[in-house]
């Protein structure tokens, strides 16, 4: 399966064309981290067998503390609820990760679902990134420590939110992507807004990979 046949939910904005290397000219920079693999993982945090099996299959200890994020290499595991996680991995690892999870969780009450078509991520950076979030979400960004992930509002939509690479990573649903991007750009414009080059936007991802 070639990435050339794929389109991210923000494809129509042709962000690559507008993108430049972030500098001090603007208060806010954003770029998409497109076409990652997303896996919904369900199971009971209180069942050690499940937690151990999932952790070993993912190569990351499954975060069981509420609102925390575990990361190892290019794999990110976000706690959603006591029985739900969102696994984000490079597309190239998607099939193998799903297979590993299904193998490890054989016979254990759980659910592993490929949801890769359903999400995308945006990395928000710059001096005013947190101001933009204050316009867009009701969550108190001061409480968003590194390693924490929360699901909250974004305008009249919703997002997962965590700190990444001296900025913030937003993970949200495909069908709302157009709205979220427009709403974010609108909030960012008064501070000066630039589309960040994909290389820079995904620097963190590459570094950790």
């Amino acid at each position, binding site marked *: 399966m070639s990435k050339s046949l794929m389109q991210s939910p923000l494809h129509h904005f042709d962000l690559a064309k507008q993108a430049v290397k972030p500098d001090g000219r603007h208060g806010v920079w954003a770029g998409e981290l497109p076409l990652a693999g997303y896996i919904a993982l369900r199971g009971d945090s209180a069942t050690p067998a499940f937690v151990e099996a999932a952790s070993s299959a993912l190569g990351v200890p499954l975060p069981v503390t*509420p*609102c925390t994020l575990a990361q190892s290499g290019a794999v990110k595991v976000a706690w*959603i*609820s*006591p029985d*739900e996680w969102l696994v984000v991995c490079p597309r190239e690892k998607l099939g193998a990760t799903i297979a590993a999870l299904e193998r490890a969780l054989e016979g254990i009450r759980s659910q592993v679902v490929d949801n890769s078509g359903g999400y995308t991520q945006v990395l928000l950076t710059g001096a005013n990134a947190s101001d933009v979030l204050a316009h867009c979400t*009701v*969550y108190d960004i001061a*409480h968003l420590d590194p390693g924490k992930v*929360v*699901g*909250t*509002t974004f305008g009249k939509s*919703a997002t997962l939110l965590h700190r990444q690479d001296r900025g913030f990573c937003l993970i949200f649903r495909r069908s709302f992507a157009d709205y979220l991007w427009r709403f974010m750009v609108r909030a960012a414009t008064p501070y000066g807004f630039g589309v960040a080059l994909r290389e820079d936007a995904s620097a963190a991802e590459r570094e950790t990979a």
Partner: protein
Amino acid sequence: MFLLSCPHCGEKREEEEFAYGGEAFIARPADPETLDDEGWGDYLFKRKNTKGWHWEMWGHQTGCRKFFIVKRNTASHAIAGSWTLAEGRKAYDAEGGAA
């Protein structure tokens, strides 16, 4: 515009993240087929409509998507606490099933 404490996420969050889930502890009758119309009608339609302390459910829509129990004063919007479904049931029973 109040704050609700989600017992799963362990944080107080803005009301916008939640959706109201109706009066709590309206248990489905164990055997609906043997229940008379009045009993079934009560389960379907009768609600306390309390002015004062009210046990109710909320769902953390943008967060963990879990339903949980809140004891809220419908007149003052004061909130006495929030619990998971199971813990809320215990707290409710400890008060004798009603406040």
